[in-house]
């Protein structure tokens, strides 16, 4: 394994001071007022792209643009890390799946292997390089979305997938929850359904003729449209998918819901989850094991984990 670029990080961690890791600072994380004594960055570069295996080994500091460009040469991409700014490590540290969560699943499923530096400065590997693996506990899913407080990930093997032949967004005026449910039932595995109480944005992927046929067979007045964007200063939260209808009807125009997944985007800070003491107990024990002196990313608010 090429360990170039890791020495400064290991040295910083072993020096006993608090260390923060950052990429391009393009994502928001819940923070405390504490600042680390020193900052480090992750190494960069796509190490090994295997299109026949649908896997890519990539360093954490690699930009999303570089990874997307490399994978795009063979018509592939990594779900959740295929567009936008920032680094691969940043996207995985935050663990947000994006607007295609409904059709493509969770970003937590894309990391097959994670290599990280632990709080002692030791190199640790979780998972393995194959697309299927139940050898030992699934630490990869734990590290994705951990905001870097369980160790500093420096390298990943990620699952890639082929780009669909076509990906088309449509919009239709829809204000009734029953109509939204009709859309949910009537389309085959849509990639995304967004609803703000006034309009539904629908993303279909696959063969262009299948997309055309689905739209033609729908009773809604769909219009082709570009990919929608959530305002950058809005925050993501999660509700029960069954509660989405009442929330959107109540807050029409001030909320965007990812229908079917329960992900809600709103202006301002997102509400904290209802915490259970038993869950907090597990989180605290994990922190005691992986970050006992809180020297890794001390600026991250661990109460949000």
């Amino acid at each position, binding site marked *: 394994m090429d360990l170039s670029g890791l020495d400064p990080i290991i040295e910083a961690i072993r020096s006993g001071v608090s260390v923060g890791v950052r990429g391009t600072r393009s994502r928001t994380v819940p923070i405390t007022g504490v600042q680390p004594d020193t900052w480090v960055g992750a190494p960069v570069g796509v190490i090994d792209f*295997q299109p*026949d295996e*649908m896997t890519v080994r990539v360093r954490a500091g690699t930009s999303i643009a570089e990874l997307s460009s490399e994978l795009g040469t063979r*018509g*592939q991409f990594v779900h959740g890390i295929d567009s936008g700014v920032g680094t691969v490590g940043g996207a995985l540290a935050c*663990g*947000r799946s994006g607007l295609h*969560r409904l059709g493509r699943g*969770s970003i*937590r499923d894309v990391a097959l292997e994670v290599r990280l530096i632990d709080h002692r400065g030791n190199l*640790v*590997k*979780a998972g*393995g*390089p*194959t*697309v*299927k*693996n*139940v*050898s*030992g*506990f*699934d*630490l990869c*899913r*734990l590290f*994705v979305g*951990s905001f870097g407080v369980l160790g500093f990930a420096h390298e990943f093997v990620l699952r890639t997938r*082929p780009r669909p032949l076509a990906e088309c967004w449509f919009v239709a005026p829809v204000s009734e929850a029953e109509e939204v449910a009709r859309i*949910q*039932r*009537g389309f*085959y595995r849509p990639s995304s359904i967004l609803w703000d109480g006034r309009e539904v944005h629908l993303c279909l992927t*696959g*063969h262009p003729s*299948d997309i055309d046929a*689905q739209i033609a067979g729908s009773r809604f007045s769909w219009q082709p449209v570009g990919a929608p964007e959530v305002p950058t200063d809005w925050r*993501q939260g*999660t*509700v*029960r*998918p069954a509660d989405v209808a009442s929330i959107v009807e109540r807050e029409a125009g001030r909320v965007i819901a*990812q229908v*079917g*997944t*329960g*992900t809600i985007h709103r202006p301002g800070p*997102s509400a904290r*989850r209802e915490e*259970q003491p*038993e*869950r907090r107990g*597990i989180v605290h*024990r*994990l922190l005691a*094991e*992986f970050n006992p002196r809180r020297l890794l990313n001390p600026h991250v608010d661990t109460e*949000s*984990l």
Partner: protein
Amino acid sequence: MTLIHDLTAGLPAGAVTIDRVDTMLYAHDASDFVGRTGAVCFPETTEQVCHVVRTCAKHDVPFVARGSGTGLAGGATPLDGAVVIVLTRMNRILEIDPINRMAWVEPGVLNLDLTRGVEQSDDLFGLHFAPDPSSQQSCTIGGNVANNSGGPHCLADGVTSAHVLACEVVLSDGSIVLLGSEGSEDDGLDLRGAFVGSEGMFGIATKICVRLTQNPPHVRTMLLDFESVRAGADTVGAIIAAGIVPAALEMMDKLCLQAVEAYIHAGLPVDAAAVLLVEVTGLPHQVEAEADLIARIGREKGARHVRVAQDEAERALLWKGRKTAFGAIARIKPNYYLHDTVVPRGALPEVLDRIYEIARRHELLVLNVFHAGDGNLHPLLVFDRREPGVLDRVHAAGEEIVRVSVEAGGVLSGEHGIGLEKKDFMPLLFDDHDLSAQIAVRHAFDPIGLANPRKVLPSPAACGDLRHVPEGAWI
């Protein structure tokens, strides 16, 4: 008070047994390992599971959760007089939300019963639970969660973890915690993701929220036969490289084909060295385009014939051949040992060659029937255990197969888990630091170490359990 007295006090009449036949019956799962059962309990509610677990903690006795016992790695084998908690009476589908495609179920629901329970839901396409292990008629959802189970149709849709949104879990101190949520995109640690596949060592799932998947409106099932295993394996890589992820992509070799054909008479090409069973699903234009491209790739790679199932009956027959392969093998020899490793797809031809060579050297018959699309090998060593010394040869060959797979860049298990069977192979993949991280996560979920101990982690590493020795104990 004795353990049995305390267990009985919180459970319905007849829900605890120490009967000799019962304890022997529950001393093993579908693997060859036989353990020692302290007692067998049959709880019907989460509260009753809590009672059993709390009682085990009070008496410092380990416990093992168990569904149908179809596991092949010894994960549900009780050690050291553990209490076996049988969850098959907790078998209700509690709630179905067909609009948002999810259901809450108890852990004892059978995999296929879940699909049968939701397929008539109010969805234009119908719904199903995507993971489909070969044992789906008898394995439970709780077992699927414990092992992060797969199946032939997980190539495109993912294994169990991708289909579990949340679990209600009883921890080893008897407390109850909800991991994950119906809207599973919370910021923070994915404790649900860590729990799935933890082989009963983090706690016991007593309710599970599963994601349901729309049924495909169109299906093409194809059988491609080849004169060499290598040509078939090369075709697998070429299909994936062409940007197609079939719903299923399975391979059977010659000996397996001959056994299956003699069993079900499906008109399989018994003179072929290998066949690929390929299924593409979805909307019609996509399905037709992919089926055409797969047929073309297959022919370019040397497929002699491309048989396309003409109707549902023929499709069912082809799948029956795949799914009854293990039963058909009884026609060759009375016993088999099924292995489960994963290699990169590109390494399939070389690793299969090595497997045939290993079997030859140990004077064993080997059949290969496996999930070729994700490189998940299932070499079946068939034998007659009455033959003196044969078990030693079977285990020696199996160990070599595992080592060859790892040397080729693969991993120890794709879907059966580690359990007792492969725990001492873990150092082939993980060094001490890697294993320490796994031990640390286990301790975070189960600080007292009573949930199915001495599985998964290799024997020396299991000494990590000594970090939490009760006060006053002698080391």
